[in-house]
């Protein structure tokens, strides 16, 4: 039976992991992820979770250990943030290339230097080309739900790709809110044990995994990842639907749509600040603005079709990024612009909130009203800018 608990996001993730019965966990501490793997270590030591826990000496080794464990048939989990994820990056590619259904929580945190422990999506989005499925939660409940869904998606025979579940540092990771937990029976019914595959490490059926592929084979291996990503879109939608039957909660597949019906401007973003954007949109409707929010739940596979359908016929699309690709624009801005290139819609980007700078409903209001006033004045060009930079500090004119 579902029961309510008041949990910080990190503990919500830890409880979800426990319910998924992983065989092997390998982890290394890093703020603000640490309390996830601390809690799981506690579950294991108290024998509430029957799993092997490898206290590795680095994140690179954490992912390497899971690659080994997963290739031997185990269900696996790790969590990391920021520098840890970047240090792990080589192994992140290797996990996807080996088609191993590993699940990892990423508590998104800004990148050094200077040191910052606060939220920023640059770490997560720096993994976008690795072949991982990349999801991002809005609140603690969704972080819990996404972990359980992630195993179903990753282990689907048509997918077999690793999944990362993002949640914002502190806004979610260390903020306690009510979370509806599932029972072990419910999760067992939703998530069967990991199936055995013919290419596991097994002395009875020896296979060589990952040996040299010449140019006449390598590309096909990479294309199979692309195909798996394509199939993952449907699997994500189906799993979301099945999860609704179990819990009553449904998030809309790859994109959550909020008050988009009849809207002429849509704000696209991901993560915890979607809550502030929704609050802003509620207020703006009262003022007569017709603005909706499209919250990206998945950035890989990227919801191109959903966004094209959602943004067709709008006056403008506003993409708010908690990351920057220096010399270009926000990462999501370039992704969304690319997806919408066939549509004649204005796409405006704002890079905001880096390193945990607070962005509230009033900030979204400023952005939306700026775009509206530009549209009123006939300025319909697309483009991206930084929002809220204290230019007097950097000495810009």
């Amino acid at each position, binding site marked *: 039976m579902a029961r309510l608990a008041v949990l910080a996001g990190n503990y919500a993730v830890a409880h979800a992991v426990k319910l998924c019965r992983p*065989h*092997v966990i*390998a982890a290394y501490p890093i703020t603000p992820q640490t309390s996830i793997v601390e809690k799981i270590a506690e579950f294991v030591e108290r024998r509430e979770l*029957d*799993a*092997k826990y*490898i*206290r*590795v*000496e*680095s994140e*690179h*080794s*954490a992912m*390497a*250990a*899971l*690659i*080994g*464990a*997963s*290739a*031997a*048939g*185990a269900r*696996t989990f790790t969590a990391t943030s920021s520098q840890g994820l970047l240090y792990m990056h*080589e*192994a992140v590619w*290797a996990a996807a290339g080996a088609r191993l259904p590993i699940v990892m929580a990423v508590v998104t945190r800004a990148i050094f230097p200077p040191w910052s422990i606060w939220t920023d999506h640059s770490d997560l989005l720096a993994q976008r080309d690795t072949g991982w499925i990349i999801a991002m939660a809005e609140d603690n409940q969704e972080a819990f739900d996404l972990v359980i869904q992630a195993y179903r998606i990753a282990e689907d025979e048509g997918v077999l790709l690793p999944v990362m579940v993002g949640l914002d540092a502190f806004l979610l990771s260390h903020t306690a809110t009510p979370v509806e937990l599932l029972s072990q029976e419910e999760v067992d019914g939703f998530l069967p044990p990991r199936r055995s595959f013919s290419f596991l*490490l*097994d*002395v009875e*059926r*020896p*296979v*060589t*995994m*990952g*040996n*040299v*592929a*010449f140019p006449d*084979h390598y590309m096909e291996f990479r294309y199979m990842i692309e195909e798996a990503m394509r199939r993952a879109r449907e699997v994500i939608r189906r799993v979301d639907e099945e999860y609704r039957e179990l819990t009553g909660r449904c998030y809309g597949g790859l994109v959550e749509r909020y008050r988009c019906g009849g809207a002429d401007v849509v704000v696209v973003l991901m993560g915890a600040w979607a809550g502030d954007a929704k609050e802003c949109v509620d207020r703006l409707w009262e003022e007569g603005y017709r603005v909706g929010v499209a919250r990206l739940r998945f950035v890989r596979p990227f919801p191109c079709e959903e966004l094209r359908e959602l943004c067709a016929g709008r006056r403008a699309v506003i993409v708010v990024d908690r990351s920057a690709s220096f010399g270009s624009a926000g990462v999501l801005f370039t992704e969304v612009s690319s997806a919408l290139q066939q549509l004649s819609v204005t796409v405006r980007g704002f890079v905001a909130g880096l390193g945990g700078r607070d962005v509230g409903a009033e900030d979204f209001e400023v952005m939306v009203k700026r775009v509206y006033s530009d549209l009123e004045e006939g300025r319909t060009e697309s483009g991206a800018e930084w929002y809220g930079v204290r230019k007097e500090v950097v000495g810009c004119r």
Partner: protein
Amino acid sequence: MPLTVKSLPREEYLLPGNASCPGCPAALGLRMLGKALEGKAILVVPASCTSIIQGPYPRTSVRLPLLNVIFASAAATASGIAAALEALGKKGVHVVCWCGDGGTVDIGLQALSGAAERGDNILYICYDNEAYMNTGIQRSGSTPYGAWTTTTVLGKRRHKKNMPKIMAAHDLPYVATASIGYPLDFVEKVRRAVRHRGLKYIHLLAPCPVGWRFPPSKTIEMGRLAVLTGMWPLYEVEEGEFRLTGPSRALLDKGRRRPVAEYVRAQGRFAHLTDEDIRELERYVDRLWEDIRRMLSS
């Protein structure tokens, strides 16, 4: 009963016609490893000559389950496999890292040290050809003093890292050195190692004809000269107890060691060495054996 070649399994786990160079010590070692464990092993192989020896997709020359892994990750990957086997209740299978010297003493050291400290149940074998041979003979932390490589064209000015000693300092159940010149000694050590639980480490000297510049027919001879000159002492440390093995048992007395020059002059990589360089290598050998004497007396 001493082990003989005839008593080894006839079964081959490294197939003939593989992609190794003529006289390759890694191929020979891998063949012995398969026989020693009678096929009950999962291999973890980081980037190294064995990446090539196993052959390209869709074929393989290795009849053991083999996972190729990123360079720095062999020991950590093996830890994961060992944990998975335990969690899934699979018994009687050894998880074996088969890694070159670069993947062990340089880029793989952190992961190996971590797995050793944790006591994860794996057998780690470093086949040491004393340079990055697969990328074309670049200096590693395991390259000996004076050796020419493509990144030390005038000869390396530092001695080889004493990796087995570093591993012994991790307080492991089993650490051993071996040389491809004595394959049965290697097989015996593999079998003794896997009787222990925890991380076992074997450092196998693997003379490489291509990188060391000697004829491919001389691999075994070079592996023996390394031992007989005292350059590569054969020993094992089992549950903290140190003992010399094979021909090295007789070499504590310096007078019974062959001159280092015999070993050095047989290899093109040392062709430029001066008499003073050779004296420096002799001093290195003396220090190695002084250290062994201390370990035997403690």
